[in-house]
């Protein structure tokens, strides 16, 4: 279990214990966090689980795989610290990760 904090666009934080091995996206969906749609179910085929990773965490995350940056081109208001949360797999290394959610996903 690792603690992941999701901050809604309106500023409301949700800190959830997510089992290691699940994605940050799955953690949000299973706990009904509003603001992550995950239309494609985690196959990196849409960009509706888009999150902004808190600066100090961004460089600690595993690098983007091919294709994630391409999908992020299609995200709503992508920024330098944008990631697809379906590609972030929870582990002890991610304990304490904070992500902010965009205004909307599509």
């Amino acid at each position, binding site marked *: 279990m690792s603690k992941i904090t999701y901050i809604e666009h309106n500023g409301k934080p949700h800190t959830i214990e997510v089992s290691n091995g699940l994605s940050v996206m799955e953690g949000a969906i299973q706990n009904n966090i509003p603001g992550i749609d995950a239309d*494609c*179910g985690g196959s990196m*085929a*849409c960009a509706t689980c888009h999150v902004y990773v808190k600066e100090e965490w961004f460089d600690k995350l595993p690098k983007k795989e091919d294709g994630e*940056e*391409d999908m992020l*081109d299609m995200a*709503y208001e992508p920024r330098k610290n944008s990631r697809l949360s379906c590609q972030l797999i929870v582990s002890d290394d991610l304990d304490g990760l904070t992500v902010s959610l965009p205004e909307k996903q*599509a």
Partner: protein
Amino acid sequence: MINTDVLVIGAGPTGLFCAHQLGIIGLKCEVVDNLDKIGGQCIELYPDKPIYDIPAIPECTGEQLTNNLIEQIKPFNINFHLNNRVEEIKKDQNNWFIKTNKGIEFKTPNIIIAGGVGSFEPRKFSLKDCEKFEGKQIFYSVKDKTQFKNKTVCIFGGGDSALDWAIELSSNSKIILVHRRDEFRGVQASVDKVKELEKQGKIEIFTKYQLSSLEGEGEIKKIGIKHDDGNIKKINADCVLGFFGLIMQLGPILKWGLNLDKKTIKVNTENFETNLDGIFAIGDICSYPGKLKLILSGFHEGALAARGCFKYARPNEKLRFEFTTTSKSVQNRLGVKKDD
């Protein structure tokens, strides 16, 4: 007005196999899809990606799966209405009256919604002001390229659509290409061509920039673009084109009075009918306890929904269960020729 036994909304794998099942039990159907081609997500999102969990097919791509399904429904000569999105539905006695955005009308006792995660729509600029100019100076597709002749056209995006139109329109327009990062994801040949046109002065390229403002009274004269580092540039533009791929939206379905659970439609698991008589939902768009978003589940759901349609389409007949291996009438519908 087209009369049919069933209207299937969505030409993805689930809709296609459901059309097959309808054909098998002798019901006629018409298929509507908002995309310009058959295949749904399989074709739009992952035509080249392998799929490993279709029963009895160890591996196939989205495109192969689609082609096989199209082949399988050939005997039924099903009509497809592509580039059409269902806008309105109305019930009158035992029939549903349906109208698409292109004005096609259907009368049918049954609607099967196999709409995946909704219809594919172009992803738009996030800037609110853009709505006002949509279709006038801001476009998400090119219908008539002559309208851009001798104009300054600013194209946003880094994929094939953005690159292809930048190249195509550069012969008669001044092109400015803006993308949010340095790498373009279009095919290498197009990237090379764009770079070459940049050297010739036909295309101006700004990377790490995104649209930040529109300037002008009632008409766009200039646009503001913002660099990753916060710097803003003002550039002249007569037209703005955005190519950010497609998103999926439930769209008008939301307004039909269906029982919804987030972006899905609640159904029963006996025949996948919704809370409205004669409207069924199958595939990714339906939800019920234990729902798995797999293509194979969509096939199962379609087989049952097809049979659920029978009672409304043939109220005075009884549906007999038959196997394709042995039933003469089913084989006739399939056009199987036996030399006995």
